[in-house]
């Protein structure tokens, strides 16, 4: 007795969709690049919400240097590029020595007022004068009737900035996010009507 078994191919339409999706990967790369850019912007927004370590009023560093300058800059069939167009973020990622270049010394803020005012060259604090304390040369102001001297900026030729390990998200978190996005995209292609 001959047993005849027919196997009906019900998978071809799905396989065709997957195959077609894999021929042209640009849509996937657009999705991956966009999701990575979103993730980075969210990361910078979260950093912006962290309190200042000294309890000073925050400046808008992570928003203006990080979030604002993060975007997908290229998409193709072979990949996507996400750019964080900020020298300051790059420096935080790598760390290094900051040397005075515009003047002879760097002005390091010592008070919340100086931090908020920015560089002395911006003119935010009137009446600054040069003087020396036991620790270093400073720019100071004289306060009140007694003209009490309050240092506002320490003057230094250079400072070392340590690498900020959380300047951008950890590599494994990025990989995980990108892979999850790719998996979801592929699942969507397979299940599409």
């Amino acid at each position, binding site marked *: 007795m001959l047993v005849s078994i027919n196997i009906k191919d019900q998978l071809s339409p799905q396989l065709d969709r997957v195959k077609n999706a894999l021929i042209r990967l640009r849509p996937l*790369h657009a999705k991956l690049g966009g999701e990575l850019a979103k993730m980075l912007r969210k990361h910078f927004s979260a950093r912006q919400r962290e309190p200042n370590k000294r309890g000073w009023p925050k400046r808008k560093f992570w928003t203006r240097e990080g979030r604002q300058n993060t975007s997908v800059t290229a998409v193709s069939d072979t990949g996507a590029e996400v750019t964080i167009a900020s020298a300051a973020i790059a420096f935080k990622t790598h760390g290094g020595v900051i040397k005075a270049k515009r003047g002879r010394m760097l002005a390091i803020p010592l008070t919340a007022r100086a931090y908020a005012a920015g560089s002395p060259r911006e003119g935010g604090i009137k009446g600054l004068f040069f003087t020396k304390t036991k620790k270093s040369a400073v720019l100071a102001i004289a306060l009140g009737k007694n003209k009490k001297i309050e240092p506002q900026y320490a003057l230094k030729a250079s400072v070392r900035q340590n690498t900020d390990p959380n300047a951008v998200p950890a590599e494994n978190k990025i990989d995980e996010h990108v892979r999850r996005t790719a998996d979801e995209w592929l699942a969507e292609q397979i299940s599409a009507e």
Partner: protein
Amino acid sequence: MHKIAQGLHKVVAALRNARERKNDEPLKGLPEAIERIKAKTPISGALKTSEWARVPLALRERAMFSARVESARLLSAMQDKLERRITLTREAVAHGEAYVDRSSFIADMRKIAEAEGLGDKTGTITDIRNAARLGLIFDFQTQQAAEYARYAMGQDADMLDAFPAQELVRIEERELPRDWLRRWAEAGGKLFGGRMIALKTDPIWQRISRFGTPYPPFDFGSGMGVEDVSREEAEALGVIQAGQKVAPSLPDFNAQLEASATGIPPEIMGKLMRAFGNQIEAVAGKLRWRAQNAG
């Protein structure tokens, strides 16, 4: 699956390369932001902010100006600094080379303004020497350039398909925030779960903008920005129907120039003609770009 793996490798490679980048390798600005800032012409003129608002968007988009600033030298210096900032090009300074940042922009522009005898001596926001005023100029120009770059990239067909919508979100806190929900509603915007979301091509974005542009900033010092909404989320919220296609739409400011030039007061028209020189021409009472400068 191998092709997907290759794609993943490329996407994360950019960030990995950033981590491994040596300090002397050149940094890269956002391409469309660079293109936009380089296309601007310094325009000096004693126009108030309210008068500049009446200038056609196509001209405002091409102009580097600041209300009531007549110094061509100052405006050229601003253009140069902002271009260096956006292209991440170092400039020569007293002891080497340095990137332009907000602080150096303010300090250097103050110096020029004082040397030119500019400013209304009030020390307030109307005084071009005022640090807050200069900071606003820097913040506005750099944000607008970066947001334009993101907007232009977002109009790529595949990017738009993946992220067809965006949400108006607060990105910086303000002591006295504007009522954006009300502004959104008055401009005809819909809410989705209380969120201000619309397709990227929706005219709502130009309607909520003080400047008529479909990308941030939407007002001076607003603290507002936009964030992409994925197709999946947009479909789930009902912003877009499943499978609905959104056609890319970059606003054609040049086409709008000719239509919107009517009604410009003669004194402003004269200043614009002098300022833009041979880039524009007046024909039959309408302004248009000369062919070689269009686009």
